[in-house]
């Protein structure tokens, strides 16, 4: 469903951050991308919805080529790609409900959105999602009055509101404490498997916590030096492979 071929990105010519990435994602619940800092994990994720422009290569989502799409085409395609950010990126001054509804902005005209006239089905779905992420009753609260974990739940709900074909998550737990990180990962896993109402959505998560990745992901992609060096089940992730990805052993113990 998501086909990436020979994806490359260089911010500075001659120093590629991503070199010829090939990746296929087809509905396997959670795919975790791990690797050391600076190895292009975040760049890879952001190339998929072209928040970062690829230098070369092709990205196909449900058969539609994303690289080289016009502005309008890209905008329409982005509706089908949900994104969860490390720092939540909620609109702080808006309420939780408004943040959720902003997931539907791609489907509603700007004028109606401004007047907050969203479809009743959207509003019903928003209330449903609030319950799914465990934030019923928070609809009218301002986003900046929430804790980090609560904000990330809103961020996830916003992404799911888009009814996306794929959910991208860029270090979603890096700003959260360990307990909250597990809760968020569980929420993402449940959503990926369609356990809390709704369809299954493949989730691609870029993360640096290997233990969390092994615990919740069904597939692990290890990156090093801008290339994919491992692609398989968590069980197959031996210490040798981790050494190859991250370099050095001390951190393993």
């Amino acid at each position, binding site marked *: 469903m998501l086909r990436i071929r020979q994806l490359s990105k260089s911010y500075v010519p001659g120093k590629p951050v991503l070199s010829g990435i090939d990746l296929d994602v087809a509905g396997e619940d959670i795919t975790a991308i791990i690797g050391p800092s600076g190895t292009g994990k975040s760049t890879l994720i952001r190339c998929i919805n072209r928040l970062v422009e690829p230098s070369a290569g092709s990205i196909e989502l449900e058969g539609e080529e994303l690289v080289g799409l016009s502005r309008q085409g890209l905008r329409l395609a982005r509706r089908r790609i949900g994104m969860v950010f490390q720092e939540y990126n909620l609109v702080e001054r808006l*309420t939780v*409900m*408004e943040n959720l509804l902003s997931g539907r902005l791609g489907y509603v005209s700007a004028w109606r959105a401004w007047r*907050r006239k969203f479809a*009743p*089905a959207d*509003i*019903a779905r*928003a*209330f449903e999602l609030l319950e799914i992420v465990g934030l019923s009753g928070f*609809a009218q609260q301002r986003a900046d009055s929430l804790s980090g974990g609560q904000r990330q739940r809103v961020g996830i709900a916003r992404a799911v509101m888009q009814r996306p074909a794929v959910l991208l998550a860029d270090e979603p737990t890096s700003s959260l404490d360990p307990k909250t990180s597990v809760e968020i990962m569980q929420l993402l896993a449940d959503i990926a498997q369609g356990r809390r109402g709704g369809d299954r959505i493949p989730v691609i998560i870029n993360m640096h916590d290997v233990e969390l990745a092994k615990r919740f992901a069904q597939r692990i992609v290890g990156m090093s030096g801008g290339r994919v060096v491992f692609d398989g089940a968590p069980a197959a992730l031996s210490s040798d492979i981790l050494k190859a990805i991250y370099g050095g052993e001390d951190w393993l113990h």
Partner: protein
Amino acid sequence: MTEALPSPVWRRFSGAQRLTRFAVYLAMVLAIVLSLRTVEIIPEFLADAPEQVVDLLTRMWPLDFAYYPRGVHDALMETVHIASLGTLLALVLAVPVGLLAANNVCPWLPINLAAKLVLVSSRSVNSLVWALLFVGIFGPGALAGTLAIAFRSVGFVGKLLGEALEESARGPIEALSATGAPWISVLSFGYWPQVKPAFWSIALFRWDINVRESAVLGLVGAGGIGMALDSALNLFQWTRVAVILFAIFAIVILAEIVVTVVRKRLL
């Protein structure tokens, strides 16, 4: 689940809030419509306006720079002096009034209100009107201009000073009072250090505005470049008007640069 629940409704604002907001919108639209209907504008003049403006601009070109040394420079300098002295005088005058207006420095309500009233009145009367007043009292010239700037700025500086005082931390003040220090020591060691950066920032800000304001005071005879502008306008010497406007523009930009540099280095 197959029970058909009614679709939940969501509203951004409560009923009372919506009503109030709507009332304000309505009032605004009403104000605009009423103003449009009753304002006395001759439609031909409105239609003519762009053409007239362009005509005026063409008459100002080329700028008569030769006029500058003789007619403009001294007046420009006088304007800067008016602005600077006026601001300084305002700072001196504003300190006592600002102190009296701050409810933590001066706890007696009637005095607070009186001081605040003085500040509001000073702000509400325009510098041009103050200039008219002082030209009537002291005669035309830079003295009237300086006093006008000073009296106009007292309100501005005094109010911001009062607010800065009211927002300063009580802790050091209490500690100082507890040592039995006289009130002037409490002022200089307790309040002043806290208020100092805000004070200089306000002073700079006001000086910047006053440079602009001083430039026009001459139109009513209170000295500065405004007087040169007035005579050039009355004689329809548009190229000279243009040079004077350019000089004013330059001095305003210069003042802003000075303020930005001083802000960065001292504050």
